[in-house]
């Protein structure tokens, strides 16, 4: 070891030789520190991983949105006209609640960890079918989600009426099919798509407005607008792909779900008011009002739980290891009381004794940390390939090493201080 100052250089040798006489004890500390670094670094890596995922923005005004579910039991709801009137009355009622900015009728529910999907491709190509999420919304859909139209236009009330009528006609009976087995009469539906899906379907950059998609029945989807901010954790990897068509979503069996956007901070109050108001409008159903924050909390429940457990474990582990170092150094001090006294009697200052123990511990810690870095990578590779998680980032290890260096020094400090206070007179006494 090349050194610039003389004093520490003189000390390394004796410390090393003294340590060699106590291989197991120092080996244990080094091993413990190595394992601690490996575990803590991997825990923190997994925590950061989970944090990143939880911090991912949906692109919507998550904090100020409510989900309202209305599930009818009154058989009157089985009739189409009744359903339509009930839906109109509901939307009007919700809109009149103070604090409500916007409401839409849609089966789309952010952060529930699912949704509906289909396969489309650029019309007229023989390209691959590309899976995308697909949802119906009315003209207030994007305003309610809080995701701006980036190109083209939003649906208007007429689009919604036209579309509702079209779906009603399609539901009335089987479609006549041609020789190819596909419907003879194709339909064209206006859609708003996410730019991510546009890039996927048309290879690269827009503009996408005005272009057409098709499904495997040959029906067409005319793109009238695009949105950019959209992320929904679907069970298949199509989180950023979505297509929206104009519709009002309701049925007897599926009920009528609404998304509501409220003024900041009005969520709780509006939720209560909406529930009461809607029940007053029509009592033949049950209602469930939840905040999107709550739904998101449930979606990430396990992740958050595991993260907090991991943090707890990491903290406890550093604590246990530090206590262990305190204990072992204390023994070391107790055992060497006479020698320390002798050194003091021969002229060593308190600071020399303190430095001796700190240096000794620092050397052990460093060996442990070097081993720990290897172990941490090993454990990470093992965990990533068999269990879960992402590759560990190296800055994490730098932080971990620094932290444990300090923890080791801090843990040694108390017993080392006690050693420094040993009186030189001890040397002259019998034990």
């Amino acid at each position: 070891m090349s050194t610039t100052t003389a004093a520490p250089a003189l000390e390394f040798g004796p410390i090393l030789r003294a340590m060699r006489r106590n291989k197991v004890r120092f080996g244990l500390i080094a091993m413990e520190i190595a394992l601690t670094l490996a575990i803590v670094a991997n825990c923190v890596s997994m925590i950061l991983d989970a944090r990143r995922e939880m911090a991912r923005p949906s692109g919507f005004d998550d904090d100020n949105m409510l989900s309202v579910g209305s599930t009818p039991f009154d058989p009157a709801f089985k009739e189409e006209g009744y359903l339509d009137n009930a839906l109109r009355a509901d939307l009007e009622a919700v809109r009149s609640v103070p604090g409500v900015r916007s409401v839409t009728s849609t089966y789309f529910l952010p952060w529930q960890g699912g949704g509906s999907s289909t396969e489309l491709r650029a019309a007229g190509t023989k390209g691959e079918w590309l899976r995308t999420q697909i949802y119906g919304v009315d003209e207030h859909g994007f305003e309610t989600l809080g995701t701006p139209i980036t190109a083209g236009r939003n649906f208007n009330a007429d689009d919604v009426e036209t579309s509702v009528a079209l779906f009603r006609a399609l539901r009335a009976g089987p479609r006549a099919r041609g020789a190819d087995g596909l419907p003879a009469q194709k339909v064209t539906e206006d859609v708003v798509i996410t730019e991510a899906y546009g890039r996927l379907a048309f290879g690269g950059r827009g503009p996408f407005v005005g272009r057409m998609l098709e499904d495997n029945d040959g029906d067409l989807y005319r793109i009238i607008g695009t949105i950019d901010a959209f992320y929904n954790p679907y069970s298949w990897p199509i989180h950023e792909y979505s297509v929206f068509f104009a519709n009002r979503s309701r049925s007897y069996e599926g009920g009528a779900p609404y998304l509501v956007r409220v003024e900041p901070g009005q969520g709780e109050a509006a939720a209560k008011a909406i529930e009461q108001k809607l029940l007053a409008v029509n009592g033949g159903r049950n209602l469930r009002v939840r905040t999107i924050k709550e739904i998101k909390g449930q979606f990430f429940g396990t992740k958050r739980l595991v993260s907090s457990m991991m943090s707890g474990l990491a903290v406890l582990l550093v604590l246990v290891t530090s206590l262990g170092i305190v204990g072992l150094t204390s023994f070391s001090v107790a055992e060497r009381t006479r020698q320390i006294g002798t050194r003091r009697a021969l002229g060593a200052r308190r600071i020399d004794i303190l430095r001796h123990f700190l240096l000794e511990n620092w050397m052990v810690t460093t060996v442990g940390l070097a081993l720990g870095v290897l172990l941490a990578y090993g454990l990470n590779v093992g965990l990533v390939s068999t269990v879960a998680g992402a590759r560990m980032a190296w800055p994490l290890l730098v932080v971990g090493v620094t932290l444990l260096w300090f923890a080791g020094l801090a843990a040694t400090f108390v017993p080392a201080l006690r050693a420094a206070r040993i009186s030189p007179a001890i040397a002259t006494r019998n034990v």
Partner: protein
Amino acid sequence: MFFYNLHIALLSLRRNSVLSTVIIGGIALGIAVATLFSTMRHVLARDPLPGQSDSLYYVRMDNWDPLKPYPGDDPTRPPTQITYQDMVNLMRSDIPARKSGMFKANLYVFPDPKVGRPSQQLARLCFADFFPMFQVPFRYGGPWDRQADEGPEPVVVLSEELNDTAFGGVNSVGRTLRIGDREFKVVGVLERWRPPVKFYDVTQLAVQAPETMFLPFNFLRPMKVQTAGNRDGWKSAPAPGLEGLLASESCWIQMWVELPTRERVEAYKSFVDAYVIEQKKTGRFPRPLNNRVTPMMAWLQEQKVVPNEINALTVVSLLFLAVCSLNLMGLLLGKFLARAPEIGVRRALGARRRDVFVQHVIECEVVGVIGGAFGILLSLGGLAWMNGWVKTLLARDGFFQLDLPMALFAVFLSLLAGLVAGLYPAWRVCRVPPAMHLKLQ
């Protein structure tokens, strides 16, 4: 001699209470953490039907798009559920001892208006075999018989919870309950049945509570029941509405069969393959033959019933215990060596190495056992805390419980930790030469 050693060990622990607290506290923490996470994992991973699960098989067939495989992590896997038409055809086979297609649905229950408002309940539509197949426990009455499947007869099995809310918890067998648009006769009420993992349907959240009522599958058509589970499709239905769905390639039904012998398993696999090959002639099943008749435990693993995060936590917690054990080893080594003069005296007075060794190993095991006891208590606290969390997330009570195997595992871990930590220090200290320390005195 053992009790004498025990006595010595306890005396030794009392002599330095701060050190003993650190020693025992460290190992208690290690045991607590390892027990807590191993138990959580065990609750999710254990065999829900020991003895029975080996003969239960989950059936899948690949009716997906000719152009691309069923989406998901593994492109070799067929869809997780099957179509209605295939279920109907598979139900005709007599090879399985028992069999049931099934799905879950939201249905309205209308209790006596004096008792409460109508409420939407999660129901399972299934066949009579469901109950004996999955060893569902009954409190009152029992399952319906196979004839009731055919009718279908309006019979229903209620969970204990729904029986409590709809009938005040009395024996309601023989009484009627309105579900959806018709009256059902209660034929059975379940005993408290809360398997942590909903092992008969892990296509969605595996830790969901079981449904609160069970109806004959064939009410699907007359009541126009929609699934509340996943419905995966790749091809548009030939017609709108329910009839279109039933004739479509949509996969939304879970299919279980009970195959008690190896021969029946083989016979059933051939039957499913032959069925699909037959169907291929009509133009269905355009993909290569890819049928799966998967044993229950393998299916639960494939569906990752134990989340990766829990596995990671378990690994980390066992490593945590290893660190605690190393820590204990260091502390015991220091503690024993500090006692070297005393041991020198004992050795000089005739104590054999073996006596010294045994004495110290026993002291280590005493530390292990006391630490383990505190650790198990701590882990019970941890589990209670976890259960509070599960309650807010899933609305389920007492989800994680320490069972006997895990309690024994915890005791085993404590003894092991004590032994691993104690062997070296005990060996080291028994090699103290008798004379050396006498000289110093």
